[in-house]
């Protein structure tokens, strides 16, 4: 049985309180980190093989290494709690139930890169999360983990919470920085990367909640322990948010590399109501759909890429045999059309065009040739957009057609749903 690390505290009573956290060894990692040099900490994170948990999977240690070494340049840590990828609900749970774990990760990261300021960006919808963050930060100040001369180390770190106000795109790191600066959440041009020019023009380290949650454990248990979990290119524990047609939806902390089938069948209790599995989205709404015959794939960055999808946020959305894939593609397209920031042409217009085409087919108004148009449109968006959202909005429709083309053709030809036809008879 895999021993949960990131979620080890969340089921304890009053798990969000600093006293609970301290009782269970909290903030020991900070002390341990302070005993080492910043370079040693960066090296540990590099050796751990930790990759970002927000979706892109960029090696965390490399990111830390990009931060300028000049001590005179003020630096910032920006904490991304803008969890908005449909199907993903891990960060909210950690923030609400174990915020100190993240604060500890932030302190260590700030120490390693020499940052004196941290901002937490959190979705405006997470009212409880905001409260928990504010309380946790206040308590951390009170206990001397934040503020001036932390634990006598000479290190200073100030931290505050910044609430978002409803925009999926602000989960993209540069859009998040724009939003933090009081602007519309449009992604920025890269380069320069946030590590060079980030918040307020200063070098900024941006990390997802789950990534930061890993940090104290890497310091405490050592990078070798962390790197011992997972696969060749995907190390450590990972929280998988499982939703959809399963018996026990929820967050499951498991080693990277575990098979998708095991997550669904053993941890989430299998497909509900005895139905057969039809398809799975393995990494949140923006990752390509996998058909049931591919669920033996190990849940790791490299293996999912090879299987034609992505690890993303590790949000597993399970669909049973009664699911209409045209409707799935349509609903996901609707989400992305709603959440396009509108800055660049292909995403702004393409997202709506994709949705309209899918909506037509779903409602029996599709015409022969529409499927090709959808594929061409999706390809015309992916790679031409300003930010990675282009790929995100092309993925669902493209993968749905790739694996379930006959359902689209049926919709066009019979002006109705194949799945409904099968299951209502």
């Amino acid at each position, binding site marked *: 049985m895999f021993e949960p690390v990131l979620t080890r505290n969340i089921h304890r009573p009053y798990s969000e309180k600093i006293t609970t956290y301290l009782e269970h060894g909290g903030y020991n990692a900070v002390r341990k980190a302070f005993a080492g040099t910043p370079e040693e900490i960066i090296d540990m994170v590099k050796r751990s093989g930790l990759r970002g948990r927000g979706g892109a999977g960029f090696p965390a240690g490399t990111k830390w290494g990009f931060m300028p070494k000049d001590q005179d340049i003020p630096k910032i840590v920006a904490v991304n709690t803008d*969890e908005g990828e*449909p199907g993903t609900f891990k960060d909210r749970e950690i923030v609400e139930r174990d915020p100190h774990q993240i604060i500890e990760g932030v302190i260590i990261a700030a120490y390693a890169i020499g940052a004196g300021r941290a901002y937490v960006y959190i979705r405006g919808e997470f009212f409880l999360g905001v409260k928990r963050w504010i309380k946790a930060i206040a308590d951390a100040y009170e206990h001397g983990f934040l503020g001036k001369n932390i634990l006598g180390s000479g290190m200073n770190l100030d931290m505050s919470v910044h609430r978002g106000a409803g925009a999926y795109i602000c989960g993209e790191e540069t859009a998040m920085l724009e939003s933090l600066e009081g602007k519309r959440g449009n992604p920025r041009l890269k380069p320069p990367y946030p590590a060079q020019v980030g918040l307020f023009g200063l070098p900024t380290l941006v990390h997802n909640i789950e990534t930061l949650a890993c940090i104290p454990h890497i310091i405490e248990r050592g990078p070798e322990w962390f790197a011992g979990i997972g696969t060749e290119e995907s190390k450590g524990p990972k929280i998988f948010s499982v939703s959809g047609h399963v018996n026990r939806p929820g967050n499951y902390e498991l080693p990277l590399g575990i098979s998708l089938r095991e997550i669904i069948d053993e941890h989430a209790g299998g497909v509900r109501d005895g139905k057969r599995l039809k398809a799975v989205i393995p990494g949140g709404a923006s990752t390509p759909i996998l058909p049931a015959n591919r669920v033996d794939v190990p849940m790791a960055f490299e293996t999912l890429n090879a299987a034609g999808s992505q690890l993303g946020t590790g949000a597993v959305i399970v*669909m049973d045999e009664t699911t209409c894939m045209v409707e799935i593609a349509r*609903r*996901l397209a609707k989400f992305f059309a709603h959440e396009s920031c509108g800055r660049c042409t292909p995403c702004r217009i393409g997202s709506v065009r994709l949705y309209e085409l899918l909506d037509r087919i779903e409602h029996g108004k599709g015409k022969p040739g529409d499927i090709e148009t959808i594929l061409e449109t999706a390809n015309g968006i992916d790679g031409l957009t300003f930010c990675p959202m282009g790929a995100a909005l092309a993925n669902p429709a493209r993968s749905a057609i790739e694996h379930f083309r006959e359902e689209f053709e049926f919709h066009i030809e019979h002006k109705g749903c194949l799945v409904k036809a099968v299951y209502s008879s």
Partner: protein
Amino acid sequence: MALLDTHKEDIERHLAKYPDKHSAVMPLLAMAQEEYGYVTQDAIGEIAGILDLDVTHIKGLIGFYTMLYDRPKGKYLLQICTDLPCALRGAEALSEHLCRKLGIQPGETTPDGLFTIENVKCVAACDCAPVMQVNGHYHENLDEEKLNKLLEDLRREAEVSEPAHYD
């Protein structure tokens, strides 16, 4: 009453958080919305003055962020998620039920000013789908029966007290 009369300390606290005061625009807008129920025209002007921003910029922010409103909404904001994970567990039918029950469409407010329905994007509670936030409170694993009861409770609550706001 202006925000500077009622929330001077909070405003200063927010301004102190950032090296560039423009960053304080989001907290100040949230503050105005909490105070007045939505961001009033006066509040936009006042915040623009405090932060040395053009009102056009603030209008643009309100338009960009779905949680900011420049017009009144119902006492209870019913935000039902209809994204994929919730939809797989019946959110769409539930949303339709809610609309039928209140006689309004998503985006509308009941004539008595009590309820506004919105179909919102994923609120990160997919394990408890279908989900609805009521003034920020999560109501999880909903079905028609639970929803009916919730509406009754809210109506009763509204008769005796001001609705709890976002906490």
